[in-house]
């Protein structure tokens, strides 16, 4: 082949030149894209986000501007709880013997901060490694991936948790939280961290529990301080920091405590009381776990399937006037109930303020504050199985007994004798049998659990929390 045949013509040269320019343009575009995508990544120290949605709600409710209050509250919270990189416990918790075991300060520090690990494979920064992508740095349920979750990730700051063994309105036990972390929630974005039950990772689990409780206490205090700012302090005439408002008219920042020592001491005492109250609810949650009465015919169930009569009675209750489960869960639990309600976290800044959750325009101030678009909360289709709070009989018993906090699922009034005002424990068990009978797979799981000697003995002894924790594996 001769050289001349392949010699570039002027047309080829123009074409090549054009290609060179195009290639350069592509390279520049790519480089620009890289810079654009990577820009904004190197942010400064991580800080807890203020609860701007709650502040916006209070502003609307009490017609009082709270921007300055938000700033004051953050200053107080940083003084008490530290930062995401350097958390600390308020003295009220750290020095109170009755609250001493609630949060371990060393584990708390290990769970916080940036992700890292040591020679032995022990990780630090556990919360950011496992949780913050959905639950957010502040535990506000607004992590980067939150918008894609249904339901949205839990906002710890309200201090309300769905799946627990304690009564409606009470805090969950550590075992309840551990159960959710270890076994996850079926059909949601909450993963199962099963590795954490292994001995070498048990401390990681405890650290995460400490951090979740810490965020919840911090967040609940923030709400109380904001509420106080809206109702008991005068921020209406305050246009911001360094305004003309008297120190006694607003929350005093720790940095200003010298100029108003007496008022600050009074404020500190009040805040300590609030912290103590919240922390005590957490510390005493274990005491509120009820004893689950043994399942009727428990011995018989070990060798035979669920008595059909119990299922039939449960079905009657399900569709009857007292339990009236079908009004939400639909006939035979197939869903399609008439109600399309919302969770309490959404109602707080919508229906409670007289705003329609579907009216995006009127909710704009809340979206600007960071609220996620409201999502209706249809009642569960029980025929799907895979109950989020667990599919063991004991767990379903507790769901029926206590309801699900933060949702329209109500608690049952437990009565001694059959009456029109509530259900007896036997009737709740019949409902459990019926609910489990709606799904074949869960029926098998239920029998497996019932045959488990450890679970059976624990039920007999009334060690409910332990059963909940162990039987979660059957989900």
């Amino acid at each position: 082949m001769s050289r001349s045949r392949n010699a570039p013509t002027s047309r080829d040269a123009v074409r090549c030149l054009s290609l060179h320019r195009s290639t350069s343009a592509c390279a520049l575009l790519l480089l620009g894209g890289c810079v654009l995508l990577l820009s904004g990544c190197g942010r400064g120290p991580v800080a807890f986000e203020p609860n701007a949605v709650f502040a916006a709600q209070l502003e609307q409710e009490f017609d009082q501007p709270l921007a300055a209050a938000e700033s004051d509250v953050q200053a107080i919270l940083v003084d008490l709880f530290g930062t995401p990189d350097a958390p600390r416990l308020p003295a009220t918790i750290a020095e109170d013997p009755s609250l001493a075991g609630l949060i371990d300060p060393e584990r708390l520090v290990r769970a916080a901060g940036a992700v890292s690990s040591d020679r032995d494979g022990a990780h630090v920064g556990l919360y950011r490694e496992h949780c913050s992508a959905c639950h957010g740095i502040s535990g506000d349920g607004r992590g980067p991936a939150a918008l894609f979750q249904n339901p949205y990730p839990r906002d710890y700051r309200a201090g309300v948790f769905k799946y627990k063994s304690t009564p409606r309105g009470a805090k969950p036990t550590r075992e309840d939280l551990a159960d959710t972390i270890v076994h996850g929630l079926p059909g949601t974005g909450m993963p199962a961290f099963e590795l954490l039950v292994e001995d070498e990772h048990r401390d990681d689990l405890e650290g995460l529990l400490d951090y979740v409780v810490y965020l919840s206490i911090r967040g609940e205090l923030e709400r109380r301080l904001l509420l106080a700012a809206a109702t008991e302090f005068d921020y209406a005439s305050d246009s911001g920091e360094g305004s003309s408002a008297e120190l006694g008219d607003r929350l005093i920042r720790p940095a200003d405590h010298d100029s108003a020592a007496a008022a600050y001491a009074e404020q500190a005492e009040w805040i300590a009381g609030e912290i103590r109250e919240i922390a005590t609810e957490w510390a005493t949650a274990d005491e509120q776990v009820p004893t689950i009465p043994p399942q009727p015919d428990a011995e018989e169930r070990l060798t035979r399937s669920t008595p059909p009569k119990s299922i039939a009675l449960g079905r009657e209750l399900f569709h009857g006037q007292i339990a009236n489960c079908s009004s939400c869960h639909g006939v035979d639990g197939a869903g399609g109930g008439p109600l399309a309600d919302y969770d309490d976290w959404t109602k707080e800044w919508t229906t409670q303020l007289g705003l329609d959750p579907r009216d995006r325009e009127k909710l704009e101030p809340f979206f600007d504050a960071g609220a996620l678009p409201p999502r209706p909360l249809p009642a569960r289709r029980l025929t799907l199985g895979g109950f989020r709070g667990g599919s063991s009989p004991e767990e379903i018993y507790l769901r029926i007994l206590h309801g699900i906090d933060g949702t329209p699922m109500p608690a049952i009034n437990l009565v001694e004798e059959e009456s029109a005002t509530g259900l007896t424990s036997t009737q709740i068990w019949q409902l459990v049998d019926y609910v489990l009978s709606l799904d074949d797979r869960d029926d098998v799981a239920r029998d497996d659990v019932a045959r488990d000697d450890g679970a059976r003995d624990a039920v007999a002894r009334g060690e409910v929390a332990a059963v909940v924790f162990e039987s979660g594996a059957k989900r």
Partner: protein
Amino acid sequence: MGIEQIMSATLSPTDRELSSTPSQWLHRCAVLLVCLVWPLIWIGGLVTTYDAGMAVPDWPGTYGYNMFLYPIGTWLSGPFDLFIEHGHRLLASLVGLLTIYTLLVAIRTEPRRWIIGLTAATLVAVIAQGVLGGLRVVLDQRTLAMLHGCLGPAFFALCTTLAVVTSRWWWRVGEGEPGEAAARGRNSVGRNSVGRNSVGRGMVWAVGVLAVLCYLQLLLGAQLRHVQATTSPVGFSHIVTTHVATAGIVALVSVAVGVRLGRCDDLALSRPARGLIGLVALQIGLGLSTWVVNYGFPFGSDRWPWAARYVIQSKGFAESLIVTGHVAIGSLLIACSVMLWLRVLRRFRHGPIESAAGIKRVMI
């Protein structure tokens, strides 16, 4: 050597190029580099998946040891985090040493100066990538980890480029020889085959855009994988939407390219073109799976029992392989599209395989 010079050299063979023969040793070294860098990306991906980037907190040493003298027993019997992080460093070092050797081979045997320059650029890139990985550890910066993760596939593409331009095919086409199929006598010269085997400006652009889009996808994916806890949900959703939309465009372009080049008789073009379709299909499957194992099913959990019962397993073995596989196949897609682009570009410059028979190029 700037990209203009490199491209100019690839398009306009010099007298030196035409009068000399290619170095097979250099090509073998380049192929070996490619074969080592892909597992390196896999292991690097695993390091991120298991959050093991800081399992060895010092650099360039390993817990005070010279990296190469770290007790092998401690390494192999230690925690998994240490195993993959130290393993990643050792393999990266091997790649670095091989790159040095490749440059020496190029200097000694390669007649084309621009290829020596390209090999030197590869060495600079591997050093930069190593330093970046080291800084990620020393400064404990996750942003640097993301940058390190984004540059790894670029280095992979660079090694692929080196392997392509040192290949015999590249040389043969430069000399106007027919492609593989034609050389075996399977190619019939006719009007239809001319259209089938021609490569026009449109195809060069299409494959080039495909390579750029694949890399853009990798950047977007890195934003999702290394998501900052302070990123807003809206910002994250925009990245997800763009990633998904770009995946659709990549799929369309790769199918169009694959169908068109898949009919070409030159196996050097048709095979990778068809392979691209398969890789894109695999990558889309892995992408969807990655979402599911990270965040669950995006819909259907209130409708279908299998979705309602699905529980995400955090850092499960299969889940980790899916997520890391998505990263690794993404890199492979970039490398394949770059390889195809270079070949298409070469074929565009030097005409279709029928050019030996004096038939004019038909533009597409």
